[in-house]
């Protein structure tokens, strides 16, 4: 929740709220580290021990969605570029990983990073276009590109096979199989936690501060000697990699990835879903997509699971929430948590937690 700088607030034409003085770090760093470690261990162990397979599958999907949302944070949150094609990169990662595993007998451990790497050059092409096109025009460009890839690439037999389904079996490591939903949850949890840790460190780095400067005022950043093009391309590459990796995890979560038909899987709807839940959670924070993604997946897969129109009802609800968020609280749900923490901090308890 560092650097809640004004761009998104500015997007909605509001002044950023004055940042109240941050509560002094009263608790020592060690206590904080223990708390984080305990939370990490709880997240790793509790769902497989306490919950049934269905819940484990739902929670692993929530984490995969969080990783997709992280790719939106890397782009929209860090350098202020809106892409309407996150699902396209998810699709690239998904089909690539599935094909690498089933057709080329690559182990998952190589296939998933490789699939994510395949998405990077594609993202860089979009990034290079984005250097010339700003805001509105970039959004249109990504929308049209997403439509083209969905209709032209994701339907091709050389990619998705004649049966139009790419198989993506769950991986195993030596004697340990990740085939069951509980084991797969553990794997996804570890991978996504690693990415979140990386993202957390990146978000506090010099690179990220340069990115925030680009996001908040490109001309000013340029004037300060920041290489705007470089940081935009870094953000695009990172975003493509994260979305591609999420796609690989998603493919092996699904176990078989369909294509084409009346309702394309990696189309505009999926992209909108990812953008929506990230904005609802908070597009500036790496925890935003975790919160937003979890709410989305639990809503669609559990609360509305019985309804044939679950996804559409959820899209309506999220659309309404996004609208209210844009009109009244552009920083997303994460901001409320920040507020709550500050209020508690002012009372002197829980300070620094």
């Amino acid at each position, binding site marked *: 929740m560092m650097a809640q700088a004004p761009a*998104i607030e*500015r*997007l*909605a*034409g509001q002044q950023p709220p004055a940042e109240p003085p941050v509560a002094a770090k009263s608790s020592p760093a060690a206590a904080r580290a223990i708390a984080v470690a305990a939370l990490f261990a709880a997240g790793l162990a509790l769902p497989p021990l306490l919950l049934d397979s269905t819940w484990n599958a739902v929670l692993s999907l929530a984490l995969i969605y969080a990783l997709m949302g992280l790719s939106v944070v890397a782009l*929209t949150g860090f350098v*202020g570029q*809106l892409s*309407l094609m996150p699902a396209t990169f998810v699709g690239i990662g998904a089909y690539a990983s599935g094909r690498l595993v089933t057709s080329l007998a690559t182990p998952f451990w190589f296939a998933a990073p490789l699939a994510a790497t395949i998405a990077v050059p594609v993202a860089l092409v979009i990034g290079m*276009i984005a250097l*010339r*096109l*700003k*805001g*509105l*025009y970039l*959004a*249109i*460009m990504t*929308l*049209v*590109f997403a*439509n*083209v890839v969905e*209709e*032209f690439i994701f339907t091709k037999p050389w990619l998705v096979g004649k049966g139009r389904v790419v198989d993506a079996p769950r991986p195993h490591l030596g004697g340990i199989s990740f085939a069951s939903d509980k084991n797969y949850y553990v794997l996804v949890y570890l991978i996504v936690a690693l990415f979140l840790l990386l993202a957390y460190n990146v978000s506090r780095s010099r690179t990220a501060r340069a990115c925030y400067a680009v996001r908040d005022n490109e001309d000013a950043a340029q004037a300060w000697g920041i290489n705007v093009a470089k940081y935009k391309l870094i953000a695009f590459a990172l975003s493509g990699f994260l979305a591609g990796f999420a796609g690989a995890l998603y493919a092996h979560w699904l176990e078989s990835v369909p294509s084409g038909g*009346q*309702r394309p899987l990696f*189309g*505009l*709807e999926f992209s*909108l879903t990812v*953008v*929506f839940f990230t*904005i609802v959670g908070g597009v500036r924070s790496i925890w935003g997509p975790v919160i937003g993604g979890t709410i989305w997946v639990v809503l669609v897969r559990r609360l509305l699971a019985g309804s*044939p*129109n679950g996804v*559409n*009802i*959820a*899209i*309506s*609800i*999220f*659309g*309404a929430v*996004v*609208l209210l968020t*844009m*009109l009244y609280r*552009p920083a997303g749900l994460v901001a409320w948590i920040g507020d709550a923490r500050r209020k508690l901090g002012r009372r002197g308890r829980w300070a620094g937690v």
Partner: protein
Amino acid sequence: MTLAATFSAGLFAQDLLNGISLGAVFALLGLGVVLIYKSSGVLNFAHGSMAMFSTYIYFEISRTFGGVPVVVATLMAVAFGALLGAGMYLAVFRRMQEAGLLAKVIASLAVAGILQGTAAFLWRNATQARVPQQFPEGSLRIGGVGLGHQEIGTIAITIFVGVALILILRHTTFGIALRATAQNRTAAKMLGVRETRVAATSWALGGGLAALAGTLVIPLAVLTVYSMIGYMVRGFVAAVVGGFVSLPAALAGGFALGAAQESLKATPLEQLSTVFAGLAVAALLLARVERFFALDQELRALQELG
């Protein structure tokens, strides 16, 4: 395979005609996108959803009241689309006048999500609906090529509506007020232009055009909550041709896109047909096509926006 072997003049002419009728739909959508953008600076990503929702209204009217003539049903759907457009502006985008571009884009995407979800819920028993044609079945054949009455009607209506809109913008008080708003909001306001009224009217026109496009094209296909998305994307391309400000260019752009895209099907470059819109929009955007249509002031306004 040689060029000559795969190319047939008759097929080409037929595809070209089909393309022009498809292009009419792109043009109708593009005109609405331009009107909405000019009046309020919103690139309306909900345009396809508005068209889809209004077409479901048309479907519902023709299903529930079997006796209603199709013309009346179509006009009711268009009226609904106009109300929907004006309502969206008054409820959402009027409050976002000062907001940045991305906020407006995201808000319009949110509206699209709401409309899509609501339609999918309301018509959950009609996920693949058939709607009646406005024009009689059958086609007009001249020489080796023919075109259905519905397609011919769509082309004629589009040209009529497009020319009427261009004249309205050029000569009426509303049109002048709208153009003034697009060029300089503050100055227009100071000169007494009622921004809300002008923008709401433009949104109503845009919504009506979207409804018209949907009700005219969907009878030839199947109505689902997703069926207007591809058309909307190509409507955006038509709007891009006019740099989001020029109605005549958007009208011509829609027809040209449809004709080019479909006529490619009869050539050895058939594979390019689906991606043509993407290639076209990339070329147009990178060439900064808006320079050729927008006045200096409009260009400045555009730059301020994005």
